[in-house]
Structures are given as C-alpha cells and as structure tokens.
C-alpha cells in the first residue's frame, strides 16, 4: 500500500492542471468583491468561509444586483444542489471513513477536486485513497486563498481590458464538457441559459438562477420520459 503522503501528493499532481483557470478566477473574484463594495476582510472571509467558486460568484452577482439576502442564500443553495448528484456518485467510496474525516473532507469538496479524485477513487482500492481528495482539495484551497488575496491587493492594478472576468463563465462552461454531446443535456442547457438571460431583468427578486435551474430540471424530468420510453 502506498503511504498516505504519496496518495496526498498524487492528488496534488493530478489536480494541478485544473488549477490554471482557478488563478484568473480567484483574482477576478477578489477584484470584483472589492469593486462591489465588500471590505478586504469580508472578501477574504468569503473565500475562507464559503470556499466555493460557484457559491461566491452567485453571492457577488446577486448582491450587486440588489437581491435580498433570502434570494441570495437560496440561490447559493440551488447552485449547490449539484452536490446531491456528486454524493450519489462518490459516497460509496468514502462510506467507511471516520466522521472526523468526513467533516474535514466536506470543506475541501469543490468541483475540481471532485472531478479529479472521483476518477482515482473509482480505480483504486487502497484504504487511504481518500488522501487523494484531501491533496486535490488542499491544492485548490491554497490557490483560491492566495489568488483572492492577490486580487484584493492588486485590485485596480489589473487592467480591465484583459477581460479576466470571462474566466468565470468559461470555468463553468468547461465543467459541462461531457454533456455537450448528449441531446437532452444540450436542450436543458439552452432552456436554462435562455431563461436566466431573458429573465434576468424580469424575474422578480433576482430569482433567475433558481427559476432557470428549476425549469431546466423539470425539462429533464419530461425529456427523459419522452425520449427513452
């Protein structure tokens, strides 16, 4: 059996390529948060407490759009509902973990770490394989905190012309790469995207993320029924 440290290291190495887009994402998060009016301490606190790109971007977007706290929190919840899916996939590999480890690992479970470590967990049987997830998650953590910090400090020094904010939608677009070839997925992507874009100004309380996600999911329920049976 490989040592815990080796598995941890393997997690770091495997997740590293995925960290490249996290750098501009973290920078832009820091810059945007300050721009919107959060203090440097609050911005750093967001990355430390929330530690999730999607959650934090939704928080910023809705906050700057003037949404109420209730809508912001429930939108963050809607965006995080994807973890139910991940849970259905990954929990069997982690079921014999001690509760303490589950509590720790939960903090590090972001999309990139999940994407990479799920492959490792599927292919390996060693008892300490969850160290892979810890390694991948810890790497994301270091990059995310340091780039947030840099974004806060550099702030206005990062030229807006670089268009780094484009890294945000691109990162999420890339998380859908495996879905582009499937017809049902493509239809759902278009429905959700159109509802959010067209409803941005019209759906009350800035609830466009929740509404778009719900309509997307309802379409999934209907489409999977029609197309397969």
């Amino acid at each position, binding site marked *: 059996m490989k040592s815990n440290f080796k598995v941890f290291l393997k997690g770091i190495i495997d997740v590293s390529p995925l960290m490249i887009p996290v750098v501009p994402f973290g920078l832009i998060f820091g810059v945007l948060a300050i721009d919107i009016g959060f203090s440097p301490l609050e911005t750093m606190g967001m990355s430390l407490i929330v*530690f999730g790109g999607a959650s934090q971007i939704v928080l910023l977007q809705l906050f700057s759009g003037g949404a109420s706290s209730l809508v912001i929190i429930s939108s963050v*919840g809607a965006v995080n509902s994807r973890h139910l899916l991940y849970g259905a996939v990954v929990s069997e590999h982690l079921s014999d973990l001690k509760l303490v480890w589950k509590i720790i690992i939960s903090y590090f479970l972001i999309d990139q770490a999940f994407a990479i470590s799920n492959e490792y967990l599927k292919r390996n049987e060693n008892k300490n394989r969850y160290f892979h997830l810890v390694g991948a998650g810890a790497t994301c953590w270091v990059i995310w905190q340091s780039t947030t910090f840099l974004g806060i400090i550099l702030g206005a020094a990062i030229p807006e012309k670089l268009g780094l904010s484009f890294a945000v939608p691109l990162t999420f677009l890339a998380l859908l790469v495996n879905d582009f070839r499937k017809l049902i997925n493509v239809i759902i992507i278009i429905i959700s995207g159109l509802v959010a874009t067209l409803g941005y100004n019209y759906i009350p309380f800035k609830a466009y993320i929740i509404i778009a996600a719900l309509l997307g999911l309802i379409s999934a329920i209907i489409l999977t029924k029609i197309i397969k049976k």
Partner: protein
Amino acid sequence: MSNWALIIYCGLITYLTRFSMIALIKKEMFNDRIREVLSYVPSAIFPAIIFPAIFLDNTGSFILEGNPKIIAAIIATIIGIFSRSIIATIFSGLASYWFIIFVI
C-alpha cells in the same frame, strides 16, 4: 442582514450540501430514475451562471453585436465537444477571446 451574516449563511449552506453529499447520501437512497434526473443537475444549473455572464453587460442589457465573449464561448464549446477536456476548453476560450480583443 449584515454582510458577515450573509457570508456565514452562504458558507453554511455550501458546507452542509457538501457534508450531506459524503456523510448522509448513499447510493441506495436514490432509485435509477432519480439518479438519471440528478445527472442533469449540472446542465440545469451552470447555464444560469454562464449565459447571463456572456450575453449581458454589467447593467443587465443585451450585448449581441461585436461581443467577443459570444464568439469565444462558441469556440470553447466546439473545442470542448471534440476534446472533452476541461483545460482545452478554458484555454481555447481565453485564447480566442484575447485574440479577438487584442489582435483583430
């Protein structure tokens, strides 16, 4: 609600969904049908963040003409379809975006 309370609530809900994912949810809890529908969750959620960020400006108005983000996102999607690689998708998107705004 103060900013700090908002941040803490958002952190809590993010953490709890992750925790429920590995500590509470078991594969057996979902039948095949539910698991099938769950597999569409990312496709239902991420576009609600992606599309407005590409098609709308900061004030929420449409920018369709001369919007380099649209072209770059299309290129990234095409590369994504063929490569199925997260990295290739992001790089091709950023590269074509920069190419459009700095070179063309």
